[in-house]
C-alpha cells in the first residue's frame, strides 16, 4: 500500500522562483524540489525558520505563488495550472487561515460580510448565507451578534476565530494554516489550537499546519516535515521528528527552543552545544577534504 493512493494532496518536486529585484536580476529560487503529501483528515505539520520557504509552499497550493515546475495534485487532479474558473471552484475544497489576524480581515467590512463572502461566491442566497453565518460563529465560540461588528472591536484571538470560521464556511477538505497562532499570546494560542483540534475531530478536515514553533507543530500534527532553505530535510511521524530527529538541522532546531524548566533547559543547552560541535567537526572535515 502506498501513501500516494490514500493522499488528498500530493506535492511532487515543486520548484518556485520569484523574479529578482531590478533589471536583469537573477530569479531567486525559494523552493528547490519539495515532496510531501497530506492524507484526508490528517494534520501535516510543516516547520521551518524565516526564509525557509514554508509560507511559499502554502501559497503555491492556494495558487498564490508562481510555480516554476513540479506538480501539486489535489484528490488526483493536477492543480498547478488550473485556470481561474477552476481555481475558484477549488475554493470549495481548499481554504486558508493566515498568520496575521489583523490584516487578514478587511477592516471596513463587518464580520458578517467577511464570513458570507465565500458563501455568496459559491452561489448561496443572501438569506441562506446569513443563517449560515450565525451557525459558523457559534462553532468557533463567538457570540452571534459579532456578525454586525467590525474587526477592530475584537482581540487578536477573536479575530483568528473569525478567520477560522471563514475557512470553515464552505466545508473544505483541506485548510492551509499559515502560522495561525504565532501572532497570539501564549494563553490565547492554546485556546485557538484546541478549537482547531475540535473542528478537525468533528469535520474530518485535513490541515497543512505551517509554523516556526516545533512545540506547537508537535501538539497539532500526525506527521511533521522540516523545511530548510527550500528543501525538506526530515519528514516522518510527529513524535519521531519532534523528539528523536536524525537530521542535524532538525536536531539543532529542536534543541534551540528553550523550555520553561531551568534544570531541563540546562541539559538541553549542553546537548545543543554537542550537536553544534559535531556539525562544526563535520564541516571542518568536509573543508579539509575539499582542500586536498
Amino acid at each position, binding site marked *: 500500500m502506498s501513501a500516494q493512493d*490514500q493522499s*488528498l494532496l500530493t506535492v511532487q518536486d515543486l520548484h518556485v522562483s520569484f523574479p529578482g529585484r531590478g533589471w536583469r536580476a537573477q530569479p531567486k529560487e525559494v523552493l528547490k524540489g519539495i515532496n510531501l503529501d497530506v*492524507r*484526508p483528515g490528517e*494534520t501535516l505539520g510543516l516547520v521551518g*525558520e*524565516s526564509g525557509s520557504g514554508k509560507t511559499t509552499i502554502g*501559497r503555491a497550493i492556494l*495558487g*498564490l505563488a508562481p510555480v516554476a515546475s513540479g506538480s501539486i495534485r489535489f*484528490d488526483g487532479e493536477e492543480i498547478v495550472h488550473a485556470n*481561474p474558473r477552476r481555481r*475558484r471552484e477549488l*475554493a*470549495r475544497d481548499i*481554504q*486558508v487561515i*493566515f498568520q*496575521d489576524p489583523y*490584516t487578514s480581515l*478587511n*477592516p*471596513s*467590512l463587518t464580520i458578517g460580510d*467577511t464570513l458570507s*463572502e*465565500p458563501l455568496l*461566491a459559491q452561489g448561496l442566497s443572501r438569506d441562506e448565507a446569513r443563517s449560515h453565518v450565525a451557525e459558523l460563529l457559534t462553532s468557533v465560540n463567538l457570540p452571534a451578534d459579532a456578525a454586525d*461588528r*467590525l474587526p*477592530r*472591536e*475584537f*482581540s487578536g484571538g477573536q479575530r483568528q476565530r473569525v478567520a477560522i470560521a*471563514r475557512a470553515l464556511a*464552505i466545508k473544505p477538505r483541506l485548510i492551509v494554516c499559515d502560522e495561525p497562532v*504565532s*501572532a497570539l*499570546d*501564549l494563553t490565547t494560542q*492554546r485556546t485557538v489550537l484546541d478549537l482547531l483540534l475540535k473542528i478537525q475531530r468533528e469535520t*474530518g478536515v485535513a490541515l497543512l499546519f505551517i509554523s516556526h514553533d*516545533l*512545540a506547537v507543530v*508537535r*501538539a*497539532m*500534527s*500526525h506527521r511533521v516535515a522540516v523545511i530548510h532553505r527550500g528543501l525538506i530535510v526530515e519528514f516522518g511521524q510527529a513524535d519521531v521528528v519532534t523528539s528523536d530527529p536524525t537530521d542535524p538541522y532538525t536536531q539543532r*532546531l529542536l534543541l*534551540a*527552543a*528553550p*523550555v*520553561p*524548566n*531551568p534544570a*531541563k*533547559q540546562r541539559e538541553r*543547552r549542553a546537548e545543543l552545544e554537542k550537536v553544534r560541535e559535531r556539525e562544526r567537526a563535520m564541516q571542518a572535515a568536509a573543508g579539509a577534504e575539499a582542500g586536498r
Partner: protein
Amino acid sequence: MTQLTPADVSSPNESAAPASAPPRSGVRAPLRNPLGMISIILLALVVLPAIFAPFLAPQSPELAELGRAFEGPQPGHLFGFDSAGRDVLSRIVFGARYTLGGAALALGVALVLGVPTGLLAGYYGKWFDSLSTWATNLIMSLPAMVVLLAARAILGPTVWVLMVIMGVLVAPSFFRLTRGIVANVRGELYVDAARVSGLPDWRIIGRHVLIVVRAPIIIQVALVAGVAIGLQAGLEFLGISSGSMPTWGAMLNEAFQNIQRAPMLLLWPGLALGITSSCLVLLAAALRDVLEDRGAEPVGASAVKAAVAPVSMAPDAPGRAGLLSVRDLKVAYTLPGGGDKEIVHGIDLDIAPGEVLGLVGESGSGKTQTAFAILGILPEGGRISAGSITINGQEVRGMPDAARRGLRGDVVAYVPQEPMSNLDPSFTIGSQLIEPIRYKLGLSRKDARAKAIDLLRLVEIADPERTMDLHPHEISGGMAQRVLIAGAMSCDPALLIADEPTTALDVTVQAEVLELLRKLQRDRGLGVLLVTHNLGVVADLCDTVAVMQHGVIVERGTVTDVFDHPQDPYTLKLMGAVLDGSETREAWHAPLEVAK
C-alpha cells in the same frame, strides 16, 4: 513576525471593548464637522447663484454703459462697475459658470482617465503598470502652463477644449493615488483570503478595493478642484480665452490693468476665487478628518481597568536592592481627548548587581512600559505618575535631564526587541557605534573606532573591520541584534535592560544570542532586567522572575520556585498553556469514507 508582541500601549484597547457604532455613511458626515459645514455653505453661496444666474444677476454681464465706468457700489449694483461700465456683480455670478464649469470638466476628464487606469495598474501590475507609470511620469515632467499655452496656440481660444487638456495634465494625481492604494491593498492578506474564497477579480475589486480607494479619491477631488480652478483662472488671467466671456481670471486681468486707478476692482473676483479654492481645500481637510479615521483602531476607547491590589512580596523600603530598585511605580498616558490612562498600577522590582530578573507577561501587561520608564524613554504622552526608581542608590525621578542622560549608556543600557528598526538605516554600523562612544567617553575618532571593533569582536561577529563599513540593510537580523548588544556594552554598564531581545529572531539564532547574553552577564557581573513573553527564555537565562498582568505584578520569586510551584492563578494558566513536551496525537487512520 514583528507582530508577536504589539506595543504594550495599544493593547489595552484590544480587549474587545465594543466601541461606539462607527459612522457608516460618508455622505452626511462632513456636515457634522464645523470646518466642513462652513466650507459647504460658502461653496453653495458660490455655486447656487451661478446656476440661477439669469434670474439673480442684476443685469446682463455684457451690458456696458461707458459713462458709468469705475463707478463705485450703489443700490442695484452692489459691487459697482468695471472699466467698461459693466456691472461687476453680474459678471462675477455669470463668471462662476465658466470658472466652475471649466474646472468641473477638467476634473471629470482627470477622474475618468486617472482612476480606472490606476485601478488596473495597481491591481494587475505587469506591463500595463510599467507603461502607465511611464506615461504618467512623462505628463508630470511637462510644465502644465506651457503645454496649455501651446495648446491654445494650436487649437485657438476654445476654453472647453483647453479644460479637457488640463484634465489630462492633472490626471496623474488621481492615477498615482489610486495605483498606490490599490497596489497596497493588493498585498493585503484579506485580498488573498477573498481570492482563496473563490471570489472573481471584479468582485474583489468591488468589495475590497473600491471601498479603500473611495475616501482618498473624494478628498483628492476637492483638492484638485481647488487647483484646477486656480490654474484655469490663471490661464484666463493671461488672456488665453476669447475675452468675451466673463470669467474671474479675465476680470482680474482687467482689474490688474487698472490697478493704479481702481484697485478695488481686484477685490471681488479675487475674493470669489480665493474663497472658492480655500473652501475646497478646507473641505478636503474636513473630509480627511471624517473619512480617513474609519477602520482605524480606536485610541484609548476603553475605560481604565480597576487596579487589582498588587501582591507585594518584595522587601520593604529599607531593603531596597543596590543596583535597581523600583517602588510603587505607576505609568500613565495622557489621552488625546484629555484625561489619563494608567497602564502600570504601582509595581515594585529589585535587581542586585549580577542578578538576572525576568519580567514576564503577555501583550498589554505593561512590561515594556515599565522598562521604558526605568530608562526614562517613555514615548510622547507617557510619564511616571507615581513611585520611585533608584539606580545605584540614586533617585532618578525628578533628576535633571542631563544627569538622567548621563546614567543612560554609562550605568543602564538598553537592548531593544526589533533589531532592524533600531538601527538608523542611513548610517554604517561603525558610525552608529562610534558616535555614542565618542560622546560618552570623549575618545578620539581613531580610539573610538578601535573600541567599536573590540566591541564587535566581543559580541562574536566574525569580521569586525568589514562589518564596521556595512549598512544595516546589508546584515542579518541576528547580526543586527549582536550590533545592538555591542552598542549597549560600549560604556561598560552595570544594568542591562533587554526588551524581548530574541523575539524577532529565529530559534536557532535566538539560542546563539541567549548564549552571548549569558557570557556577557557572567564575565562582567551585569545585572539584567529581561522583559519577555517567552517562559523558556526566562528558564534559560534568569535567576528570578516577576509575572506581570494588567499592569500589576502577580507573582515573583526564583525561577525554579515560580515555575515548579506557581501560586497565582494567572501564572498557573500561563504554565498550563506551554506546549513543550506535550503529548503527540494518536496515530492517523484513514477516515471510514476513504476517497475513491
